[in-house]
C-alpha cells in the first residue's frame, strides 16, 4: 500500500513517551521507524493501562498506540560495540530522533557523519545547553514550568496537571513537526540540520499559556475554576444528566444563546446589556432552568442548531458511541489475539478523503523482534550477531 512517507527511514532513540509520540505519526503515514530499545524495554512499554490489568512489556496501551508499525531493535549503545552498530544504522536513516539525556545524545552523535549523515532532532526537558540541561523531569514537572498548571487551577488550591503523559505527547509531536520540516529542507537544499526541542520551551512557546498575556497587561490569569462570572456564559455548566461546556460570552453567540433558550428579552434587559458583569446570578435564573430540563446531547444539538458554541462533557464510555466518531471512523478496533480486542484513535488528518489509506495503524512490535533482521540488513553475519548477543550488546 503506497503511503506518503514510504521513502523516509527514521531511527528513534529513547524508548520514551515523547520520542514515540514524535515518530508515531511518521510511522502511521508510511515511514519506516526503527526503534532502538534497551533490554528492559524502557519507560513507554511500562505505562498503564494494560489489558485486564496484567502488566506486560508488549501490551501497555501507550506502547501499542504509539509504537504502531515500528521495528524494535535492542541495542546497548553504552559499549563501543553498540556504538559501532549505531554508526552503521545511521546509514539507513533520513532522520534520527533522540529522546535521551544530553550526555547520551552527545555520545550517539559522536558516531554520526556530520557531512553526509541524516538530520537529527534532540528532545530533552530543558535543551542541550544551559544550567538546567541535566535536570530530570517527567510529564507533570515539565508542565509545571509552562504556566499552564498554575492557570488550570483555583486560587489557593493545588495547580493541576493535564491528562497523564499528555505534556510529553505534545512535546513529542512538536518534535515531529520540526523533524519533518528539516527532513524536507535536507531533501531539497542538501543541508543536514540538527534540531533541538526543549520540552519546556516547546510548550511555553505555544498558545494556551499565560506568559505573553501577562507581559502585555501585567495581569495574572483568573484562577476561579470553570465558570467565569463576569464574562459569561463561558465555562462548564451542569445539566440534567451531566455537564456541558459553553463559549457564549461574546457576540454573536450570546444573542444566539438567549434566543435559543427562549429568552430574547435578555437582549433588551439593561442588567445584561450594560451591567452584565454584576448580574451572573440573575442570568442563571434564565439559563439554569433550561440546563436542568435538558440532557447534554439535546443541549448540544439544540444550541448548535442556533450557532452557539457548546459541547457535552464526554467520558471514555461515551467516546465509542459518539455519532461523529462513528461516522468518520475516528476509532479503529484492534484485533489482537494475545491482548484482546481494543480501540485506538485513527488518523489525525485525512488526505484526499476519509479512509484513503494514507494512514495505516499497524501492530506495535514485540520487544526486540526485529533485531536480527535489521542487523542482517546492515551487513552483520549470523555469527557476528550471535557474538553481539552473547556479550549482551543486542537482544
Amino acid at each position, binding site marked *: 500500500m*503506497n503511503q506518503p512517507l514510504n*521513502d*523516509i527511514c527514521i531511527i528513534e532513540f529513547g524508548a520514551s513517551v515523547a520520542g514515540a509520540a514524535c515518530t508515531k505519526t511518521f510511522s502511521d503515514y508510511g515511514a519506516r521507524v526503527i526503534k532502538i530499545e534497551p533490554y528492559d524495554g524502557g519507560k513507554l512499554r511500562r505505562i498503564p493501562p494494560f*489489558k485486564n490489568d496484567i502488566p506486560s512489556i508488549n501490551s501497555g496501551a*501507550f506502547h*501499542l*498506540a504509539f509504537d504502531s508499525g515500528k521495528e524494535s531493535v535492542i541495542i546497548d549503545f553504552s559499549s563501543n560495540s553498540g556504538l559501532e552498530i549505531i554508526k552503521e544504522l545511521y546509514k539507513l536513516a533520513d532522520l534520527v530522533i533522540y529522546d535521551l539525556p544530553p550526555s547520551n545524545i552527545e555520545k550517539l552523535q559522536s558516531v554520526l557523519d556530520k557531512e553526509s549523515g541524516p538530520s537529527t532532532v534532540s528532545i530533552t526537558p530543558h*535543551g542541550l545547553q544551559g544550567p*538546567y*540541561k541535566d*535536570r*530530570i523531569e517527567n510529564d507533570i514537572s515539565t508542565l509545571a*514550568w509552562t504556566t499552564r*498548571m498554575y*492557570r*488550570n487551577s*483555583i486560587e489557593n*488550591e*493545588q495547580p*493541576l496537571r493535564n*491528562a497523564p503523559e*499528555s505534556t510529553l505527547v*505534545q512535546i513529542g*509531536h*512538536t*518534535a*515531529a513537526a520540526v523533524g*519533518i*520540516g528539516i*527532513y*524536507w529542507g535536507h531533501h531539497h537544499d542538501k543541508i543536514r540540520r*540538527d*534540531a533541538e526541542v*526543549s520540552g519546556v*520551551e516547546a*510548550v*511555553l512557546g505555544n*498558545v*494556551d499559556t499565560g506568559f505573553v*498575556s501577562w507581559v*502585555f497587561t501585567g495581569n495574572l490569569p483568573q*484562577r476561579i475554576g*470553570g465558570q467565569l462570572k463576569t464574562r459569561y456564559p*463561558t465555562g*462548564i*455548566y451542569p445539566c440534567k444528566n451531566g455537564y456541558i*461546556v459553553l463559549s457564549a460570552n461574546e457576540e454573536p453567540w450570546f444573542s444566539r444563546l438567549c434566543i435559543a433558550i427562549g429568552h430574547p428579552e435578555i437582549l433588551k434587559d439593561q442588567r445584561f446589556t450594560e451591567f452584565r458583569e454584576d448580574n451572573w446570578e440573575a442570568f442563571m435564573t434564565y439559563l439554569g432552568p433550561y440546563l436542568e430540563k435538558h440532557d447534554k446531547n439535546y443541549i448540544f444539538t439544540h444550541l*448548535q442548531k442556533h450557532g*452557539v458554541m457548546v459541547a*457535552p*462533557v464526554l467520558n*471514555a464510555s461515551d*467516546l465509542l458511541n459518539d455519532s461523529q466518531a462513528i*461516522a468518520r471512523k475516528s476509532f479503529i478496533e484492534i484485533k489482537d489475539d494475545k491482548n484482546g480486542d*481494543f*480501540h485506538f*484513535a485513527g488518523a*489525525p*488528518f485525512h*488526505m484526499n478523503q476519509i479512509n484513503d489509506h494514507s494512514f495505516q495503524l499497524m501492530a506495535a512490535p514485540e520487544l526486540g523482534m526485529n533485531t536480527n533482521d535489521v542487523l542482517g540488513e546492515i551487513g552483520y553475519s549470523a555469527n557476528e550477531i550471535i557474538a553481539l548477543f552473547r556479550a549482551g550488546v543486542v537482544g
Partner: protein
Amino acid sequence: MSNHSLEGIKVVEMAEAWAGPVGASLLGDMGADVTKIESYPRHSLTRPTSSRYATMPGNGPVYERDALHHQGNRNKKNLAMDLRTKFGKEIMRKILSEADVFIEGYAAGKIAQLGFDWEEVQKINPNLIMISIAGWGLAGPYKNMVTLGAGLDATTGHLSVRGYPEGDFVDTHPNFHSDATGSSTIFFAILTALIQRNITGSGTFIDLSQWEALVWQFPAILADWSMNKRIPARLGNADMHIVPHGVYKTAEDDKWIVVVAENDDQWARLCEVISHSNWADLSHAYSSIIGRLKGRKEIDEAIEQFTIKYNGFDCADLLQKNNILASPVVTPPDVLLSKQLYERDWHKTIEHKWTGPVMVGGFLWNVEPDNLDWNIPTALVGEHNKEILLKLGYRSDEIDAFYKKNVIGNKYSD
C-alpha cells in the same frame, strides 16, 4: 540567520483562533513565505475592539495590541481583504494560483460560501495543498457545528480526567490544549502532503478535524475503557502507582512545587534531603514501592513540611542538585526567573508600531546551522496589502481603487 528549510513554499492562511494561525507561523519560522488573508471589514476573533481583553495599554488601535494575536501571528505577511466582493475573489484566485498551501480555518461550509472550497480551488491550482481545520472536520453529523478548544477538550474525554478528585466539574478550568497541539498537526499534515505531491505531482485536500488531531494524544482514556471497561478517574496530581507524585506548598503564598520519586533510588535521595533518611532503610515500610503506595498521606505531609520552608525555585534547585525530580509551578512572571531560559536567550523582544518593544515567548525549537529568526513582527491589519498586490501585477491606481471600494483595508472601525 534565518532558517531556510521550507524556503520557496508559499503558504496562504485564512484562520483565526488558534491552531491555524500558530501552525502557519511555525511554517514561517522555517522559511516558508506565509501570507495571512485577514478578514475585512469584520475583525478577526483575535483582533479585539475592547481593552478589556489581554491588550497592552497604549496608543493606537486596540486590535493591534492583543497579546495572543501577537503570539500566534509572527513571520507572516498580512493582506486584509473582503472576500465577498468581486475583486476580493479575483485577488484570491490570483494568490491561490501561485500558492503551494492554503490553510482554511473557518467553520465548515463558510469557505464554500465564499467560493473557495476544494472543488473550486483545485480548478484554480491543481498542485495546491488545501487543508481545512474545522473543529470536527468536514464530514459527519457534527460538520457544521462550531467550537473552540474548550469544546474539544470536553468531547475528547480530556476534561473528564482533569480536575480535583473530590471536586465538581465546574471547578475545572476550561482548557485549550487543542490549540497548541493542533498547530503541530497542521504543520505535519502539510509537509506530508507536500512530500506526497513530490511523488504524485498533484495537490491534495486535507480534512483535519481538530477533534481527531487531539484525541489520539490521550490513548489511555479510551484504552482503559475498551481494554478494561473502566472509566479513568480524576486523580488530581496523584499517580496510582507512584508515591510521592504531587504538588506541594512552598514558603510563598499560593506558590507550589512538584516533587516526584519514581523509583527506590530517587526515593532514597529524597529521604536524605527531607531528613527522613530512615524511610529509605530496608527495615522501613516506605523503603519499598508497595510500602509507599500505602503511606501516601504521611509521605505527602512530610514532603510538604520540607517544601514549605523554601520558595519554589530554591527548593527545586536543592532537590535537583540531589538528582530528585522537582520543579517550581511557575506563574507567568516566574518565567522570567528561569536561569535556563535566560541563559538560552529564549525570550524575544520585538519592535512593533503600536506596542513598542515588547517581550514575547521564544520559538518552539532551535535548528542548526540556520537557526530561526523573528523576521516579521506581528503584522498590522493590511500592512502588506500594497506589496502583495503589486507582486500580483496590480497597478497602484488599481490598489487605491480597491481601498476606496473597501475591497481591502488597513484599519478596522472600533
